């Protein structure tokens, strides 16, 4: 069994690149990927739209998935933990259906902001975000956030 954690990100209303823009900055995604998390997106956007979003951001995701096909992600990746971060009850529904832990992006953003108001701001640097989130890592992984 792979000991890694897989984190699935909703896009619209969750990531800063979504439409509407969400509170979560891509620095968070980059940090997670650098820490060895399996990362990708799960959205009602088409797979082509999701891939285009990641390409614009210069991030190579491990997976892209349609919102209602999260179960296939779970089957494809043998990870220890599966987490979906999103902003709606629809996200919560499909996360539960695929047996993913669901983290509400507004809760996550609130926790990040409580650690350092800069984390969710426009000008927070990858370095400072990494430092803040690195500090969180004392608790091993994203479980401390959820």
């Amino acid at each position, binding site marked *: 069994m792979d000991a890694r954690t897989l984190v699935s990100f909703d896009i619209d*209303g969750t990531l800063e690149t979504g*439409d*509407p*823009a969400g509170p979560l900055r891509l620095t968070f995604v980059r940090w997670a990927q650098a820490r060895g998390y399996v990362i990708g997106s799960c959205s009602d956007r088409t797979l082509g739209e999701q891939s*285009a979003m990641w390409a614009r951001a210069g991030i190579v995701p491990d997976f892209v998935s349609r919102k209602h096909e999260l179960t296939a992600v779970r089957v494809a990746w043998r990870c220890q933990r599966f987490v979906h971060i999103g902003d*709606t009850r629809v996200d919560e529904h499909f996360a539960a259906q695929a047996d993913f832990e669901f983290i509400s992006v507004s809760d996550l953003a609130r926790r990040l902001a409580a650690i350092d108001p800069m984390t969710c701001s426009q000008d927070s640097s990858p370095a400072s975000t990494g430092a803040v989130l690195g500090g969180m890592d004392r608790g091993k992984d994203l479980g401390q956030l959820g």
Partner: protein
Amino acid sequence: MARNPLKDQLAVVGVGSTPYGRDLKRTELSLALEAATAAVEDAGLDRQEIDGICGTGMDPLAMGGSGFLTLQGALGIEKTTWQKNGWLGSCFVYAAEAVFSGLCDTVLVVQAYTRGIGMSRSAAADPFRLRSAQLRAAGGHTIVGQSDPARRWIHSGEPYAAWMARYLHDYGATKDVFARIAVNNRTHATTNPRAAMRTPITMEDYHASRVIWEPMQMLDMDVPVDCGEALIITTAERARDLRHSPVYIHAMSLGGSRVGEYYDNSLGWTENALWISLAGLRERSDLTIDDLDLFFPYDGYTIDTVGCIEAAGFCKPGETADLLASGWDAEANIYRLGGHTLVSTNGGALSHGRAGGFNFYTEAVRQLRGTEGERQVPDARTALVCAGASFFHDPASVMLRTD
């Protein structure tokens, strides 16, 4: 033929549009004013020449938002002799008839929409949108009896999903007919800088999209956006003195049936209001679908477009699947009707964004003027707009032409 005394007597002389986006963080009024000022400037008119205003809404005395009461003051227009609020495609017709009847000479129509809380989960979490919806509800908009299961189809989208099933069942079509409409519109939107959705999609993307109201899927449904559109209608005589080559209103018709607001009681596929509207247009127009360069069928849902294509007479009821398959350009990922008519060149409500179809009028005017550069359809001279072409309430059919 029916009487059509207004034939070519009126023209659209100004258009204005805002960007389209799912969260522009602006009020409906702000979007309305941007579109309105752009339309007045586009026409090259002094704003005090505007003597009629059609604002946005269904309530004649609506407060807030972008109704005529708010707009006239906000735009600093001193005197008007005609005012009304309207929505979707039919407000265009109301404005034109006001000019034709002489109640005003130059009318400004303004339509602004914001992504409603009932349209989107993330919109429902936006405290500004929530508050606006709550207060407007208090201002007189009736919350229909959704708590009674028998009344949930009052002004609902679900019966359109049910009609998709009925259409597939009765005519033996496959959902490829809807897929082609979604793909065609997205392809056109990729070149429209105002469009909300501009990444190409495939037939496979359509079929794999999430089911919402079976058999309706996400890519059958239009995109709720924040947007504003405006245009100016005046007499043909006045239009000829203005900046742009006039785009004439050749003929128009609304449609009404006895179904009313309980859509479960809809009549047969070919008997609903949409067919009445397009039949009314045919009886008033010297131009036929064979003359059409551009067609803007409503596409709040893909099934609306199927209805418009058939009601306009491009094919017999139930034959749209074959028509789109035979007219499909696999290289361009679009279809043409009758070998030449381009459809939804702005991307429609499905991909440009949900403006009640009012963006069809502004796109048609721009294309007929010939000002669209790389996305210009060569020699476009005629356009049929079916805006807000609901099966049930005030579908508008409008034939536009240039000299």
